[in-house]
């Protein structure tokens, strides 16, 4: 009520912010998935470097996760699937953030591998901070649903 009194345009701006946010998040996921889907063998090695799961589950993840990222990212643009896609994007971000935090605290000195071979020498700290910010952002997007 107070916000409507002082900023009558605020609800519209928030709505536009959510649409823009979904687009940015969707594009990020499609890009991240596409770069990894291009070379799943290299992504399997990136997963291995985290030393969280054995080789075979990591290799299976290397062929599945990129496509899940692409689909979830793309379907953030499709009204009928956007909530389900946002749920998956949020879950994936939680998993990636956990992996990055774990690698950072264990001092593994590895690269994120989040965008395949497109961005290298990223370390894990900057991607970890980016993921935490993205997670906070998904919270903002979730507030837009009943």
């Amino acid at each position, binding site marked *: 009520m107070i916000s409507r009194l002082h900023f009558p345009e605020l609800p519209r701006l928030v709505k536009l912010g959510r649409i823009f946010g979904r687009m940015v998040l969707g594009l990020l996921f499609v890009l991240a998935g596409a770069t990894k*889907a*291009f*070379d*799943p*063998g*290299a*992504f*399997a*090695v990136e997963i*291995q*470097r985290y*030393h969280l799961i*054995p*080789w*075979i589950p990591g*290799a*299976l993840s*290397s*062929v*599945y996760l*990129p*496509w*899940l990222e692409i*689909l*979830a990212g793309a*379907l953030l643009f499709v009204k*009928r*699937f956007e*909530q*389900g*896609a946002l*749920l*998956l994007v949020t879950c994936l971000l939680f998993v990636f953030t956990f992996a990055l935090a774990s690698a950072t605290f264990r001092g*593994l*000195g590895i690269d994120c591998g989040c965008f395949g*071979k497109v961005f290298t*020498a990223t370390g894990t700290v900057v991607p970890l901070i980016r993921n935490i910010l993205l997670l906070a952002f998904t919270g903002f997007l979730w507030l837009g649903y009943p």
Partner: protein
Amino acid sequence: MGPTVRQASLILLAALVPASLTAAFHPRRPVWSQETLAPGEEMLPTVLAWGANALWVDARTADEYETEHVPGAISLNLENWDQLFPKFLDAWTREKKVVVYCSAATCELSREVAERLRKSGISSVYVLKGGWEAWKNRK
């Protein structure tokens, strides 16, 4: 089951289709039987992809190093650590990934040198899986 979970389940299932095709036909699909890497170990193709960002360290004896070594590699072994470490520091920069190798996969010298480098405050130190043999047998 709520609509959100139902949508998510459908997406999870849909991703299985391209993932299966990738696993079966992608020219760069992962090798399913690949040996695992120990912590701090790295495979030759990955190191080669680092190009000039890799600083090669030869942990074998001085004689072996003199006979043959990876082009650009610096000799650094535990026997002559005090004389060789300053030379290593001259070549090292913080951005470089240090790759230590010894004669073969069974050799422990590279692990020992890598460990000492890490204790000396050098970051991004890796051991080449397969060592010099892997380098010699590269395609």
